[in-house]
């Protein structure tokens, strides 16, 4: 392997602090937590197996190969292994650098993949205006009847297979995005805190109401809310897909939009974004202009449920005569594993009148959404979705609370009409509204 051939120099895995690679002591505690290992029972599909491959590459004993690339993209990046790991291995950093290495070496190159990566990572999700323009077009497509026509006409048969299969599960884009629902600055009657609000990308287009609910709940708890205009993707999508340079650009763009010194916290309501947003300092550690700002940023980013519990949010008053609705809670991977936030969303749910909380079996297991995994690995994603849906149905709950747009869509697609998926903060906002009406 390494003896006779000259290896292409490494850009990412070679630069990593070796202690990060060495941290895994291969005890195997991660194996029972890993969805892909449980599926195949092959070591390469496990966290310690993947780390062994990364280490072999860093040590010069293995080249960056197509097989390695495929393995890195078979990993969901759900981070269940980090919760299971007593040794404290920094798997997110290893995983992001490994995928970046795969892209840098181009081992998975094919023209179609290149085109989709260019369109999504380099264009749509790198340019806030373009994201909104695409959102607007999608909305038009969905409301104008063209989508109905397209489905009926069979024209999709001409489209590439994965596009054809995805079309029916395309999220429904809303007419008005966050900037139209939330003013740049909104204040409560008495200001206790000043916070910035992140509107996200998918959240902004598909669930702007969750952003509005987040602002409402913050206002209700004495937070002055600043929502900078035209925010784009935070770069989590790029970082998770091997484009660390573009992720750094997105991070700088976001840092420029907030005046950190005037804010007590930066609030996010999307788990996948939050677990990325809290690590800007790592992404920008070699950028002298932004490094210190990024560190300050990391300390201020809070998931909405984390922040609400921290400031001891006001529990809504009991509405009279409300019946009992069963709700269950699915833990988004990047909330429970990525940020260690598990009890806070439940605390919010517990505070709500008229709700009975039913615990979900395997609540922390990945639903298969995993960023864009359901697009890149539909088969494995589908299996996990089925398992999740089966557990959800066992609870008999008519409401499923979860705090990440990806999970929200994946679960709603899996459940169909049988239950409604909702962000915990939307339920809290509703409860506050009901107080006023009753």
């Amino acid at each position, binding site marked *: 392997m390494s003896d006779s051939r000259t290896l292409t120099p490494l850009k990412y895995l070679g630069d990593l602090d070796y202690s990060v690679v060495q941290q895994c002591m291969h005890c195997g505690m991660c194996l029972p937590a890993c969805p892909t290992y449980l599926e195949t029972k092959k070591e390469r599909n496990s966290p310690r*197996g993947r780390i062994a491959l990364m280490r072999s590459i860093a040590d010069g004993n293995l080249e960056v190969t197509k097989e390695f690339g495929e393995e890195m993209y078979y990993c969901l990046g759900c981070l269940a292994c980090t919760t299971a790991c007593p040794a404290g291995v920094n798997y997110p950093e290893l995983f992001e650098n490994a995928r970046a290495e795969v892209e840098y070496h181009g081992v998975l190159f094919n023209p179609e993949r290149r085109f989709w990566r260019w369109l999504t990572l380099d264009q749509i999700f790198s340019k806030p205006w373009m994201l909104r323009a695409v959102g607007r077009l999608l909305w038009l497509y969905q409301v104008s009847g063209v989508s109905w026509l397209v489905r009926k006409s069979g024209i999709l048969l001409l489209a590439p297979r994965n596009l054809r299969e995805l079309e029916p599960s395309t999220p429904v884009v809303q007419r008005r995005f966050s900037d139209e629902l939330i003013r740049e600055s909104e204040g409560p009657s008495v200001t206790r805190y000043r916070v910035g609000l992140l509107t996200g990308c998918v959240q902004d287009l598909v669930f702007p109401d969750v952003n509005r609910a987040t602002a409402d709940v913050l206002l209700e708890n004495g937070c002055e809310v600043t929502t900078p205009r035209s925010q784009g993707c935070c770069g989590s999508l790029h970082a998770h897909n091997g484009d660390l340079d573009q992720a750094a650009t997105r991070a700088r763009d976001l840092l420029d939009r907030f005046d950190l010194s005037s804010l007590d916290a930066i609030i996010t309501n999307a788990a996948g974004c939050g677990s990325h947003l809290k690590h800007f300092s790592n992404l920008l550690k070699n950028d002298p202009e932004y490094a210190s700002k990024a560190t300050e940023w990391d300390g201020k980013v809070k998931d909405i449920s984390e922040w609400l519990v921290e400031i001891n949010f006001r529990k809504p008053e009991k509405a009279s005569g409300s019946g009992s609705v069963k709700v269950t809670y699915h833990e988004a991977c990047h909330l429970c594993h990525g940020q260690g936030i598990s009890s806070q969303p439940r605390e919010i749910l517990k505070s709500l009148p008229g709700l009975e909380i039913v615990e979900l079996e395997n609540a922390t297991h990945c639903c298969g959404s995993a960023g864009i995994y359901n697009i890149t690995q539909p088969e494995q994603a589908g299996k996990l979705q089925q398992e999740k849906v089966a557990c959800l149905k066992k609870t008999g709950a008519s409401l499923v609370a979860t705090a990440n747009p990806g999970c929200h869509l994946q679960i709603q697609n899996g459940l169909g009409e049988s239950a409604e998926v909702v962000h915990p903060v939307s339920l809290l906002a509703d409860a506050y509204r009901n107080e006023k009406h009753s």
Partner: protein
Amino acid sequence: MTLLKSRNVSLLERLSAVVADGDLLTESEDLIPYGFDGTAAMKNAATCVVTPRNVDEVAAIVKIADAAGVPIVTRGSGTGLSGGSIPVDGGIVLCLVNMDQIIELDPANLTILCETGVITKAIDDAAHPHGLFYPPDPGSMKISTIGGNVANNSGGLRGLKYGVTRDYVMGMEVVLPSGEICWLGSKCVKDVAGYSMKDLFVGSEGTLGIITKVLLKLVPRPKARRTLLASFDSMEAAARTVSQIIEKQIIPCTLEFLDRKTCGCVEDYAQVGLPTEAAAVVLMESDGPESVVEDEGNAMAAIAEANGAINVEKAKDDAHATRLATARRTAFSALARIRPTTILEDVTVPRSRLVEIVSYVEEVGRKHRLEIATFGHFGDGNVHPTILTDETDKEEMERVEHALSDIFDKTIELGGTITGEHGVGLAKKPFLDRQFSEASYQLLKQVKIALDPKGMLNPGKIFDLPASIDS
């Protein structure tokens, strides 16, 4: 080289004919992750990995390997801590994780029969609804396979009262190095027909046969348990407490010890409220009828207090008790937070000598300028001195070797054993002859030669044989 390659090609062809697609792995990316187990600083490349689905496939693989003269290393989940399942040069790795069926739970005879790829915890989970209990609980029980447990005669946190894996093995199916399949043992509580052959295979570390099924004994599930956490300002006081509990003829199910460093790491990971300031913490658990656990709990608390315990605290409830025991199981892995390489030992001494070995380990750490954390199953006299080091630092690794050598010599001097539950494998092979007399050391080898004359199964583990046999 060409000859070796062509020999491999025909070997792979023959193997692929007996297992399903996807059950024979040959690509580098597939093999690298099978180059190690849970042991620090040890790895070796596998030539191929085969993951059979039933005993006939195993037997066919063994026959093919025998004909080709290629050795086999059997493994389960690869959580071993002595390098026992590390591949041998040019050998086949036979991984049994796909043989994971529980075949029969017999509540009338209190037994369970399963394939050896079944996860240890799954056995107790299956027993639970019947009011039954499978006590052996090695630290890795959530992922270790029962086959690996049997082959290493694994212990765990409950060894003190309930014994080790061996005490539960009633029978087994074994594939011999020739490829013959044989059954040993029975469901009978008494069975003295012939040599107790099954016992020969328990703890044989894959060197004598490939265990494909095991028949295990189950016991009634204890009705109640009481968990206490006592903290001390010296390791000696903790060790003395444990020795006195045993001396007073109290046999709780668990008497676990953690030093300050271990407590700090475990608490850092698990956040279960372990005292991180005390020099030593003892986790005590009594199980059985309600009245017994009450009495034992009080008696143990009194002994701890008499030995100057700073604090003795009761677990709040069952869930808290489980969290404490679960956290304790992560001790070894959690210690990896401090230094890059974590070398774990499992020397065991007669329980009356605990204070001596614990003090000696501290002394060795000072002498060789090494960071050593100690935890372990004090109730069994089983201590886990864990050296926190860096395998890339050659000079420090030399000091590690000296420290290990000192600890083993002292253990043997105290009438102890160099391994209580991890097995010899590769890690303790160089030290085994110190513990054995020449006659007993030779006896080990004679058994191996009698059962596996060609050295087909896991050669080079436990001891080396003369080259003529080993190759």
